[in-house]
């Protein structure tokens, strides 16, 4: 499934950018929209951490941002709550057995090179790229149940799955852009590993088309006058390449940037700056202290519950996040309003209970206030990726919290890449670690919590949960499906596979004269509606 801790696992800095990623403010800027008639012209300038690849078949925040504007997918997400809407697909329906999906495509869509977009492009992208194991496609696991696509007519495609897959429309909008068949049809599998002919001048269907790439400086996308949703208002979208976040912040303050994801600690510095507004965007992302459920002492549920009871989430939110987050108790965020269950065990801070649970588990307070069992002290190594102030702060708070119940925690920071590798290793040598998931707006979490699934980095296993999640991913009926996931959340919360910390918001700072930019959608998807953006005088 789709989930990425920060969609690009690149470096600590891109992490930063990733973490922060989502814009928001629904047109907050515009106030009551319509107060002013849109003004055409101008450029929207936003930072990316390093040279982006104008190649939609790889992850990485900087790539995702640029490619979101250049390309369209079959579906996309919109307010409220990231609901699925059509992008290239105007509407769709699913057959009675839940196995065949029919998508009708918008007419009058053209590629940036002038060729018409048709059902052939969709069929080509799915069958020749997504379903072709010889070509690398990071989101392939999102389409594990998809078996084929066929053209019905120029504007209709049929997608076939081997089991009912209610998440399909959502997944089709998640980093799954449709590519031009007429450009790629002559490409061999090997050509896709050396796509320079395409990356030098990419051809998409998006609201802005490729203008100029000046390595190290910027990528300039220019207005696509033929865009099927209408001519974009801005002349250009400029992605400035800026590896240093403090430099980004300086340019934001001086008005050279129109938008940036900031860290909570930076908010104070923007007070009194009339040029900039700050929005926080609820995103489908949650942070946690991962625990290795297969390793003692975490294989004892009581220990995990005790660790959960001891963490002061409100202190984390107030202290490290400037109050801009919500306490988390389950792995399905409130953004998925139909599926989120807010009636689960929430482990409100209770040191007494935490202590009792540890006592029951055999961990008695010993020398120096540190608990021990069979002569072994309760020592935990808490890993966190290096370089992100907010997460380092959280680690310090957790360490402090755990100390109060007699747990001796050592914080270890390290390179994010190495961290991801250790996380994915089976079995993993990690004990406890601070990380997060950000996923497509669908409740299917079986990859993360199903026994032995690829992204189950907690090594969590509960057959009852497996069963619910497996049912859930196959149940088309919304009410039934919601019930399954709500039940699963109750069980997961009871098991405390990890310490759920908070549902994150992405804090974006936006120039005050920006209009047409949703303040609640998040930049990943707001950029897909770039044709609506304009700047007031």
């Amino acid at each position: 499934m789709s989930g990425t801790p920060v969609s690009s696992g690149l470096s600590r800095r891109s992490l930063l950018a990733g973490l922060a990623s989502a814009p928001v403010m629904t047109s907050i800027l515009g106030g009551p929209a319509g107060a002013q008639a849109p003004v055409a012209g101008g450029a929207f300038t936003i930072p990316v951490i390093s040279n982006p690849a104008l190649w939609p078949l790889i992850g990485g925040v900087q790539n995702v941002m640029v490619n979101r504007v250049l390309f369209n997918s079959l579906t996309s997400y919109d307010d409220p709550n990231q609901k699925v809407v059509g992008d290239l697909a105007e509407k769709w329906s699913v057959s009675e057995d839940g196995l065949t999906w029919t998508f009708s495509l918008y007419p009058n869509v053209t590629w940036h090179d002038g060729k018409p977009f048709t059902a052939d492009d969709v069929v080509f992208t799915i069958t020749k790229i997504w379903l072709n194991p010889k070509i690398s496609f990071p989101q392939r696991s999102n389409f594990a149940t998809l078996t084929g696509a066929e053209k019905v007519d120029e504007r209709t495609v049929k997608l076939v799955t081997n089991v009912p897959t209610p998440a399909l429309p959502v997944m089709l909008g998640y980093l799954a852009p449709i590519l031009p068949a007429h450009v790629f049809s002559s490409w061999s599998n090997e050509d896709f590993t050396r796509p320079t002919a395409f990356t030098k001048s990419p051809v998409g269907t998006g609201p802005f088309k490729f203008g100029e790439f000046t390595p190290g400086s910027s990528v300039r996308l220019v207005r696509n006058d033929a865009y099927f949703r209408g001519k974009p208002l801005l002349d250009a979208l400029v992605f400035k390449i800026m590896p240093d976040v403090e430099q980004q912040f300086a340019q934001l303050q001086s008005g050279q940037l129109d938008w940036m994801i900031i860290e909570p600690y930076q908010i104070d510095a923007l007070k009194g700056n009339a040029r900039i507004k700050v929005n926080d965007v609820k995103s489908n992302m949650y942070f946690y202290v991962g625990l290795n459920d297969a390793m003692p002492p975490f294989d004892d549920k009581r220990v995990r519950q005790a660790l959960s009871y001891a963490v002061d989430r409100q202190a984390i939110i107030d202290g490290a996040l400037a109050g801009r987050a919500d306490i988390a108790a389950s792995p399905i965020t409130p953004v998925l309003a139909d599926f989120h269950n807010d009636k689960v065990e929430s482990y409100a801070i209770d040191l007494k209970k935490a202590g009792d649970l540890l006592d029951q588990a055999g961990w008695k307070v010993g020398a120096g206030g540190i608990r021990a069992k069979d002569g072994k002290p309760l020592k935990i190594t808490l890993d966190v990726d290096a370089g992100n102030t907010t997460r380092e702060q959280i680690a310090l708070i957790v360490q402090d919290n755990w100390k109060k119940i007699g747990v001796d925690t050592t914080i270890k920071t390290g390179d994010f890449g190495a961290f991801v590798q250790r996380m994915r290793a089976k079995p993993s040598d990690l004990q406890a670690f601070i990380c997060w998931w950000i996923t497509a707006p669908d409740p299917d979490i079986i990859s993360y919590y199903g026994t032995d699934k690829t992204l189950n980095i907690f090594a969590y296993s509960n057959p009852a949960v497996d069963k619910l999640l497996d049912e859930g991913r196959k149940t088309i009926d919304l009410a039934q499906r919601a019930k399954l996931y709500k039940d699963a959340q109750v069980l997961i919360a009871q098991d405390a596979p990890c310490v759920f910390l908070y549902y994150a918001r992405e804090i974006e700072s936006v120039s005050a004269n920006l209009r047409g930019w949703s303040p609640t959608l998040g930049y990943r998807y707001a950029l897909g509606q770039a044709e609506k953006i304009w700047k007031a005088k």
Partner: protein
Amino acid sequence: MSASAIEEAPLPPSSGRSPGSRAWVRFRNNRIAVLALVLLALINIAAVLAPVLSPYPPNAVSLRERLQPPSVKHPLGTDENGRDMLSRLLYGARISLAVGIAAVVFAVFLGALVGGAAGFVEGMTDSVLMRVTDGMLSVPIFFFMITTLALFGATLTNIILVIGVTSWMSVARIVRGEVLRNREMPFVEAARSLGAGPFHILFRHVLPQSWPAIIVSATLGIGWAILMESSLSFLGLGVQPPDSSWGNMLSKARGYMWNAPLLAFIPGFAIFLTVLLCNWLGDGLRDALDPTGT
């Protein structure tokens, strides 16, 4: 990026009577150098005594006391996690100085080996080793440092090794010069005739002759290494939190330059001062040892 990369400490052939004591007199008369020596000694003592001198544990978080200005309770204020800056500064000194000193010790060892080998074994070996030494000085070595740390991980050991491996060249030249000068000296001949191996001669007879020049080079090198660690920290490749080095304190504090400028000023000034003192001390030592004077 480096001072020491091109700093050489040429010494004249030692002449006559007790050059040591004359050097000491000259050094004593150099007020700046003496001041640098005293202050550096104090900084080192403070670092060693950090556990005693620090008012708080360096990682004691107190979120209610974040970003406090200096007060009686916190003489240098607190950082973004409410940790006492004075305590962190003292503990940071331990790591920063340890990185500087360990890297330089390693560099001196490497330099002595290379320089010694080059001096003792003439011909091809000498010529190859000296080409390597020159070569190290003529490639953009910082890129290799970044790459190594990014790929292999910025652990304390790796940082020390990487800085050491890139700063032994001046020591190698000094030692080689000293070996060449002393090779034919009677005491070396004597040692050799008694069956001493080249390592013995190198470490027991030749190196002691080179100490003055090596110390000058090492003093400058420590400052350089501290500066280097801070540059690496800025790029995220220095000492990793929660350990505090001056470099990572400074690098982190950049984010708070807007609302808590003191946070960046304190470690920045500590680095600046220590490097400055190392350079002054190094210069003073050189002047004292080489009165003719460059």
